[in-house]
């Protein structure tokens, strides 16, 4: 996850409380989604950004996961996301995200 976004996540967690935060990702692949998810839960695995060694344990989902999809107006989802759903390997993304949440999510 790029350094500026890491900084923002950290600031929001401080400002609003980590239990009040949900991170939604739009990564194109499982591996990238997994790394971003790990960054906001267990800390930046690349040791590059402000979240290095910071274990926020935040709730994190990919926008194509059922939990988030169900929260979105179907027409808007159809207009904005449905095309990408066909393009992405959703199973791969869900599997990566679930693994990270199961291990590192605190909330």
């Amino acid at each position, binding site marked *: 996850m790029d350094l500026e976004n890491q900084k923002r996540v950290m600031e929001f967690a401080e400002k609003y409380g980590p239990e009040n935060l949900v991170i939604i990702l739009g990564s194109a*692949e499982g591996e990238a989604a997994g790394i971003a998810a790990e960054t906001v839960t267990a800390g930046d695995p690349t040791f590059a950004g402000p979240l290095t060694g910071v274990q926020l344990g935040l709730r994190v989902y990919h926008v194509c996961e059922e939990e988030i999809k169900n929260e979105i107006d179907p027409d808007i989802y159809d207009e*904005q*996301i*449905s*095309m990408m759903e*066909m393009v992405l390997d959703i199973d791969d993304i869900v599997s990566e995200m679930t693994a990270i949440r199961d291990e590192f999510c605190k909330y």
Partner: protein
Amino acid sequence: MTALPFIFLGGNMKSVITWASYVLVHTPDMVIANGSTQTTERIVNPGSEYLQQLPKHIRSYESALSYPPNRCYIGDITPAELGAMEQPYYENGIENAERFSKFGEIMPQDEFYLLIQACDSFDLVFLEENFVKTTKEKLSKHPLMREDILNRIKDGTSKEEIERFINEEHAEGLYIKGEAVGFVKRAHDVDTNLSAHIMLENLVSKASSVLSLLHTMDKSGVDPSEIEYVIECSEEACGDMNQRGGGNFAKAEAEIAGLLNATGSDLRGFCAAPAHAMVTAASLVKAGTFKHVIVTAGGSTAKLGMNGKDHVKKGLPVLEDMVAGFSILVSRDDGVNPYIDLEHIGRHTVGTGSSPQAVTSSLVLHPLQSANLRIPDIDKYAAEMQNPEITKPAGAGDVPLANFKMIGALAVKEGQLERKELNSFIEKHGMQGWAPTQGHIPSGVPYVGFAREALLSGEIKNAMIVGKGSLFLGRLTNLFDGISFMMLPNKGLEEEKQFDDKKLRLMLADALRKFAQSLGGEGE
């Protein structure tokens, strides 16, 4: 009153693509000295494992020369041929690879340093004595290096002078196998916009663009004196503290390339700039403003070794060791060359939105709809054509494939394609990526040269070139950007309805008679 007949005078002027040239420069030392990943690492983590391992992953010129995606970029093999070749490409180099090709060449670093000096007009570039002697002889054998270009190369300076400038005068070193063979001075003692770093970046962009221009003029069959306008579309900025991005790389490059009757200007649009420049050039020609316009751009030292950390970590050679350039000549209709369709331009607008769906709709679906075409009606799409062998190890996936998937998926959504046909759509309408990750370079335009040939031979009946740009990088807007155009075959000048003189006069006389009658009628 009777309507006057619409008189079709002359033709519907088209802008054709006369030629496209593509060049690469192998710059192994510039990866280490100037690539931004490396320069950043030296500041943030100077003793790092990465910096120590990096030199072991630098390729030789022969290796870069035979690397299949590089050979595709310069037109030696087609994208289809590349797609059929064995992977990994870096382990399956093409034998007997030659420096010069149909579309351009792959220049070695040492000669490029001389070309950089030849492109410098402010005595900023100095090279070592013996290096100049040896390398100038090599460069003088280059079929396109005119005498006046070679004369811009200066006699060399001493090793001591080079060391002194690099160590004490804030100069940027030019290296061969780790040894300093020259330097680029800063152009001002205080102004950071004229630092040695920026002067080097700009001179590299200029020199690689000049090389492309030379190839285009050599192969296009058009006399250099006929070029009236050059549009440069790289991502660099030249200027000083009072006009930071003043620019006109175009004019600077036209000068060295010998285009004495040309003026020009720069067009900036991040990665989408080449596509914007093509539309602009075609429009200038169609309007009759100019007869020949060249769209040109050189490459970037900053992007060299951009994904080096991942390449080294995964045991690959550093594949981003090429500075790239291209020059495309757009001319008035010659009845032969494929033309740029200006009636159905795809535009990502301010109001479009940034979701991939919105982007793809604006750039592909909507222009096709306005032309009464469906997505599967376009034979070949070229969007972001970066070589996936570079991007996949870095976790960025196969970008051309992602683009073709999105275009196909949109077709499925719009009922223009069956879901089960998606994979065959990608196969049929897409291509293996090949371009180096040099920012603006991979964005649509690498295919223009191939498209021109495929349209001329009838292998394809149309192509769509899509340019996309990430504007947020400049921190001025969060908007995305893009523009697209179709390339179509020329049906010949005879196709245009050319009224002969007599027929035209008869039509005019008839119209005037009817007009006069209608005036007379009003009086009654």
